[in-house]
């Protein structure tokens, strides 16, 4: 294949996956501008390695690149040190955008769900986004996030449990 054909082939296969790539980046970076930058960077990386990619699952491959690109951008080490405690993460969110007083808290459910996902620790967040929003299988999630399937399973379980607690809370608060 010459350059032009490679590029055409790349665009035909990879551009339809932009929605998936953007959503993962958007959830990891938590804002539109950074997400766009990282998706663009990911596509450049993907293009560089496109010719040598031996697999068949282009979507999982691209998402893995997106994930790694975002992690680099976020400073992977800092992220891992900060691991888990949900309270800490939630506090951080509130620092950025303080919750409105109870009487104003009747937000659209969509927004509540998005906030709850954003409040999850990053390992749980990516697992739940890849499963529930991108529709990946456990095996694909394990490939994208580079952890065993058993870990995928327990992260999903914890993510869903925390989401339930947060959204159940929210529901009660909204009903006050």
């Amino acid at each position: 294949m010459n350059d032009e054909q490679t590029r055409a082939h790349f665009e035909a296969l990879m551009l339809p996956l932009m929605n998936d790539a953007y959503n993962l980046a958007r959830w990891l970076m938590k804002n539109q501008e950074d997400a766009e930058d990282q998706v663009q960077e990911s596509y450049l990386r993907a293009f560089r390695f496109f010719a040598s990619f031996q697999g068949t699952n282009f979507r999982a491959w691209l998402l893995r690149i997106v994930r790694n690109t975002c992690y680099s951008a976020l400073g992977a080490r800092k992220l891992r040190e900060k691991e888990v405690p949900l309270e800490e993460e939630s506090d951080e969110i509130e620092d950025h955008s303080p919750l409105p007083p109870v009487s104003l808290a009747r937000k659209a459910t969509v927004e509540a769900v998005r906030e709850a996902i954003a409040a999850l620790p990053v390992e749980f967040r990516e697992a739940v986004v890849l499963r529930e929003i991108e529709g990946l299988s456990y095996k694909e999630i394990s490939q994208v996030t580079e952890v065993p399937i058993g870990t995928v399973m327990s992260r999903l379980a914890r993510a869903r449990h925390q989401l339930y607690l947060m959204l159940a809370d929210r529901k009660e608060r909204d009903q006050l």
Partner: protein
Amino acid sequence: MNCRECHDFIDAYIDNELDVATAILVKQHLRDCSQCQQLLESRKVVGALLKNPQVPFEVPDSLRGKIQSALPPAASTAKHGSGRRSAIAWFSVPLALAAAFAVVLGLVFLYQGATIDRSRGNALANEVMSSHLRSLLATHLLDVPSTDQHTVKPWFDGKLKFSPPVQDFSEHGFRLIGGRLDYLNGREVAALVYQRNKHIINLFIWPSESGGSTAGQSFVKDGFNVLHWEHDGFEFWAVSDVNAVDLRAFASLEMQQP
């Protein structure tokens, strides 16, 4: 199975990731244990909230253009100057597609030393796949957007010389989202569109020449799975980026229909 094991498996159970034997054990435990039923309910509540189609973010329109202009220009396009290249970027997508598949087709014809049947299958698989990609790219996925098989089926009447079988498999996780007319294998065909989680499945249908039934023939092309079978006088071609297991499950549902 005890509650602890049930807790461990409940997510995989919901996500259809358990083997049949374990799934049955979970199901039996759930039947007898109200605490674990509550857990299941809580998972379902979360699942329903997350499945709201408004939860995913919309891709900003400008992103595609940004990516295309960030990619290194191919040697021959560089001659035209970058301004012009980005101006035609949008329109060049179908051309790029056509070029890509011309190449793939060309390779197929060059290297197909196998039987005529296989190379015909391969050529068709390519045609089917490029039609699938076109449908996703060109925002021409659906002519008749409807999840109701009784709306979709009559829509084809008068537009095709045959009446394709139309079934919704929502219960099994393959939701019918509509249909459209397409042109494949030198003829007009019915294209039914199904959704599996976030994945789109295109199912192309036309009357078969043999009129018989044959088992599935599968192709993997560039990360897409393509399955072909004949059943009840029709040829079926299914193509999607869902995994091969899911696509086979889909095909067997379609084949079970009267």
